[in-house]
């Protein structure tokens, strides 16, 4: 018997695939899967969240408390406009709006769980007329009416829970972020719907839609001045301002709503009240 060592050919136990090619194929597939998963989850969670009773949403939001003290005059004026808007919007039974004034420079307003709408002093100071204020409140109330806060919370929780479960603590956690980008798109849909509903409310209150687009002009001007995206995360999910202005213009035209009319000014005392409230916050 003879024993000898023979050369073994190279590459028997190694598959010759370029690692970058492998990465591209796998990563592409994974991202596609996750986007699909997030889309389906978002769709179904959003669909189901609408059926959560509003009372339950109130309970969820019961821990939410906003400081609204000693702003009597401001609150009174805002409540008056708010009541007009609510009356014009035909909210479902049991749905109540709680308006909060926040004494802060932030140029923003938002609606959250439980029908709570928060407006910041920074934005109120910039509003040119009551019509724009009504548009702003109507927009936020429309979010509540459409159940947008509970839908986005439901969506967000479902998606992060499932992605957390599937991807876990592995290296693929990075891929979970791709899910967040698709969420932005859903929100724009909501914003468009809220704009539409709000414009209708403004038309019902004033008999015309003039001044409603001033709200977006104010936001646009502010954004151009600010230049950056500092503290603007919430508004960035909104469609571009000029697109919104065009959209509500064409909406008014197709519905035959009057786009001309008398603008209702905001009483001067309201602005002086805002100034006083700003000073009191600085002290």
């Amino acid at each position, binding site marked *: *018997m003879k*024993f*000898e*060592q023979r*050369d073994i050919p*190279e590459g028997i*136990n*190694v*598959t010759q*695939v370029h*690692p*970058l090619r*492998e*990465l591209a194929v*796998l*990563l592409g*597939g*994974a991202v596609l*899967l996750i986007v699909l998963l997030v889309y389906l989850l978002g769709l179904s969670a959003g669909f189901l969240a609408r059926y959560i009773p509003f009372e339950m949403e109130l309970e969820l939001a019961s821990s939410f408390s906003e400081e609204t003290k000693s702003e009597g005059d401001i609150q009174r004026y805002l409540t008056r406009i708010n009541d007009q808007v609510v009356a014009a919007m035909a909210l479902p039974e049991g749905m109540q709006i709680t308006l909060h004034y926040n004494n802060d420079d932030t140029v923003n307003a938002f609606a959250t769980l439980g029908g709570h709408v928060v407006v910041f002093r920074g934005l109120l100071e910039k509003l040119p007329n009551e019509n724009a204020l009504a548009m702003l409140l109507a927009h936020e109330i429309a979010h509540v009416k459409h159940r947008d806060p509970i839908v986005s919370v439901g969506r967000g929780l479902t998606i992060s829970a499932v992605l957390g479960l599937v991807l876990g*603590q*592995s*290296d*693929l956690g*990075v891929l979970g*972020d791709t899910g967040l980008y698709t969420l932005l798109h859903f929100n724009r849909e909501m914003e468009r719907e809220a704009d539409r509903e709000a414009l209708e409310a403004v038309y019902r209150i004033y008999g015309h839609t003039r001044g409603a687009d001033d709200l977006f002009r104010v936001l646009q001007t502010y954004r151009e001045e600010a230049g950056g995206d500092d503290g603007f995360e919430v508004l960035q999910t909104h469609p571009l301002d000029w697109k919104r202005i065009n959209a509500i213009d064409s909406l008014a035209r197709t519905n035959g709503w009057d786009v001309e009319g008398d603008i209702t000014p905001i009483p001067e005392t309201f602005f002086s009240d805002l100034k006083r409230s700003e000073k009191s916050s600085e002290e």
Partner: protein
Amino acid sequence: MIELIIFLVLMTLGYLVGQYAEKRHYESIIKREQKLKNLPTIASRFPPPGKRLDQQLVMGSTVISIDYFKRFIATLRNLFGGRVTSYESLLDRARRESLLRMKEQANELGAEYVFNVKYETASISKGRNNTIGSVEVLAYGTALLRPSEAP
């Protein structure tokens, strides 16, 4: 955002360094395999009949770990299934390196053959999280040496 940057840096580093190390290692393996070509390593348990040779255990062991890039590809493979090609070359290198170390030891002893060659693989990290995934590959066999002194 910062997480994404860290991820990309680790991936790039893992890829570049890992590929470079692998290329150099294969060059070294092929060169040393050529050098030790004349020392046969045989899986048979029975030495050639008729020869009276001394026996000695020889072994070579390698511990390998993975780079970030290879591990990421392997994790992705978890989703889809299929060949984990990024681990294949790594384990191939470990086996050949272990065998070479064993042969180098046998060569120093002046062995004619190494019989009954076996491999053993042990996972060091045992699939635990937050540890470096590493595997030990051990090659061992019986070196047959020409008798040092006449009986």
